[in-house]
């Protein structure tokens, strides 16, 4: 059922948003060193399941993609494949300094320096790496944003896909993700259907 215009928030959208925000599933993929603070967040010590957030193994059913710290070029290729396999609405959360301006690996030849050139990022957490308490506060503010319907950064991927594709190609040389992104955009009602 293609989503209608998301700007005016019909009653159904509000209900949907409320249901979605209480059952966010986070993809269980530790891309960087920040992932060592995830087990304490997932398990009983900080227990993010109190907010309905649970680790999910497949990108097909995940809502949140955590980029936990730096992204080497090799991992970025997999992350883009995963991101395009995730069903919208999807939220990328950037952990720590490395996703903002390169972090401590600013002069490394393999890590990307600014995540928002390759994927639309919903929110960044400061820290090297962010503590479990900061992660949970981050998830809470994400939940509020989804509840209010403001967490729409994922649309940006479809709207200016050329920008993202150009940057991705700049890093890898033309990669083929076997994913027709514009078609997804049309499916999710972001881009107007092809006449």
């Amino acid at each position: 059922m293609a989503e209608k215009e998301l700007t005016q928030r019909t009653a159904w959208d509000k209900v949907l948003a409320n249901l979605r925000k209480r059952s966010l599933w986070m993809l269980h993929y530790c891309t960087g060193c920040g992932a060592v603070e995830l087990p304490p967040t997932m398990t009983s010590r900080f227990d993010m399941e109190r907010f309905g957030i649970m680790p999910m193994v497949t990108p097909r059913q995940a809502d949140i993609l955590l980029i936990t710290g730096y992204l080497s070029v090799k991992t970025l290729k997999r992350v883009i494949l995963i991101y395009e396999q995730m069903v919208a609405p999807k939220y990328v959360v950037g952990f720590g300094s490395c996703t903002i301006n390169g972090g401590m690996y600013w002069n490394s030849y393999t890590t990307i320096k600014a995540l928002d050139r390759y994927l639309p990022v919903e929110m960044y957490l400061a820290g090297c790496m962010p503590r479990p308490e900061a992660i949970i506060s981050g998830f809470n503010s994400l939940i509020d944003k989804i509840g209010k319907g403001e967490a729409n950064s994922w649309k940006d991927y479809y709207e200016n896909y050329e920008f993202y594709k150009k940057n991705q190609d700049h890093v890898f040389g033309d990669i083929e993700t076997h994913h027709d992104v514009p078609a997804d955009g049309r499916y999710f009602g972001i881009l107007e259907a092809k006449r």
Partner: protein
Amino acid sequence: MAIDKIGSILRPFTALKHIAEKPDTIDVPRHYRPAAERYRGFHVNDMEKCIGCGTCAEICDNDAIRMVPVKGKEAGVGKTPYRPAIDYGRCCWCALCVDVCTTNSLSMTREYTHISPDTNTFFILPDEKGIHEKEFPTGWHADDTINFLDLKRVPMEALSAEERGDSFIEIIKGFSKEQARKEASRCVSCGLCTAACPAHMNIPEYIDAIWNDDLTESGRQMYKTNPLPDVCGRICTHACETACSIGVRGEPISIRWLKRYAMDQIPASQLDTLLTQNVVKQGSQSVAVVGAGPAGLAAAYYLVLMGYRVTVFEKHPKAGGMMRYGMPEYRLPYEAIDKDIDFILSLGVELKTGITVGKDLPLDAVQKDFDVVIMATGFHGGRSTRVPGTDHTMVFQAVDLLARITKGDKFPVEKEIVVIGGGNVAMDIARSLARLQKKQYGEVRLTVTCLETRDIMPADDEEIEEGTEEGIVFKPGRGPEEIIIEDGVITGLKTSRCVRVFNDQKMFAPEFDKNDIEVYKGAQIIEAIGQGPEFDVFAPFTASLEMAGRRIKVDEYFQSSQPWLFVVGDIIKGPNLITGVETGHQAALGVDYYLGKRARDEITRIDEMLGIALAFQKDQVAQLEKAPRLPELAGLLAIEKTNLGIVEALLSGRNTRIHLRQELSRVMRRRDYAYLEALARIPAGPGAVEAVAVRAKAGFHLYTDMLFLTKSKELEFAMDTLRDHYRSLAERFQTM
């Protein structure tokens, strides 16, 4: 391990005993858990305590700290308007910046949560309140037992009181190699000293060169702005050490003694290798310098390098001015003076001694023979207190006596002497006479009295302490009333207590308490209450010169209202040695602008320096494009194009923008890089290989100068890359 089958299946259910307990989940965010006392959280910086020295930016391994000019923070001695801005898209919270902070103004709080979709909020300018302006307790802060800086100076050996009691041998022994390198290792190259030094000497560069044991490079850096390093290494008033950032919490770097150490190791014969500016052939225009003091000699040095014919007139038998005739030998040995002066003269400066302009040779005669005249006559006229009895024969002026000691003339030295005055000159004459007394009578009976109380005496503290060790009695805070003369012989000086020296408007108006009288016994009185200029030297033009208060009115290049007349040294600014050197240097530039009719070419900001580098790189590319296809030059064109790309990227790069506007802490001039334009005209024809080698050496010197200009890793990294390229290129063609 015998594990019975049934047990191992049932035992997991023992975990059920925890059902009744409360879960150990920390109920974040409802229940806020504070971080540990030492937690390395977000930064806080005490903006007032911070002096903007940039050492935190220097140590940061992620280049996360950029120094930005903050409104309302003014530059000053030991202070800059720059404050650290921290980029939390780079920071790894390692707290090296907190541990290396020279003033302990930077510390960390226990706050750790910052969430935002907008990355711009991750670039903060920390102040006392913190990132979210919530009062979080202090976390990781500097620890005085463990800090990276060496706050203690390397002690300098000096002659003990007995050894130096009756001798004029130099007191300070100077650093050994290990001591000098250890002292040099303490410097964090923050550049505050350069800004505070009147002559803006390249102090971080030459200290770094001493640390790297490359003494010729150290000498080269000194000669860029000071042709009298030997002298300054001994008697400079070292304003740099008062500005030193290490001095905030510890003892400043002994910059003066390091300068002396470096110059002591360089023999006079090698001084010519230290010149970085190329010596231009002598042109037709001539300049007369009146007075061979530090100011006159500095002006002469820079003018002769610019190709002017310079003649120096000096009334004393030898050049040196106050350096030789006003400074006792135990502070400044004459060999040090001669080493510097002989080198300057060797560059082609003509010295005429024994001629007093204004007496033997009137100023207008000089004006006719020379295009420009620089007056550097200094403060030789001693002022008198004019209390009753000062006309007695046994009342002397300190400056005259000091000159006589240098010339070796005889003069009476009484068993008891009283010196009036509290400045360095008073200390010099008092300690010199104390030595003569010890030699003649075997004991020192000398009293020094001055208006100022002990704490506001203008003399250096070491001078007063060393003087007391040598047996001199100090009576500060006393006003001279009258010299008591009984049947033709001076028996003492009557003084009254001086209540105040300056009135409310800080004008010199001393008030005395007449009924508190003390008499100090002495058969000889020396007056050292300050020196004044002798304006009769300007004889025919004195009337037509505009005056500013008691001094001649000059512009920033010390050009007086008469365009052909420049006035430098103590009579215009000071009185001290390094200011004399600075005025001489500035006046030389003023003369060059006036005679050479050239526009001013000071460089004030880093992007203007980069403009020169850009022009140089463009010439490189142009020359190589014209050069013949030689095997040695294969691939050079591509490299030069990338270098050009690097410099263009810096100029247009938004990231480096903030640093490009940084004020230079030292005086750079386009003239210093005039040789780069000459390179563009070297023919690219058959001599191409040699031409590339010459240009490579020029490039190396250009980027060596620029490397110390900034704290930004972006600029530093680019300058370092370019410098290494030109060093290897020059080595490849063996012309270093």
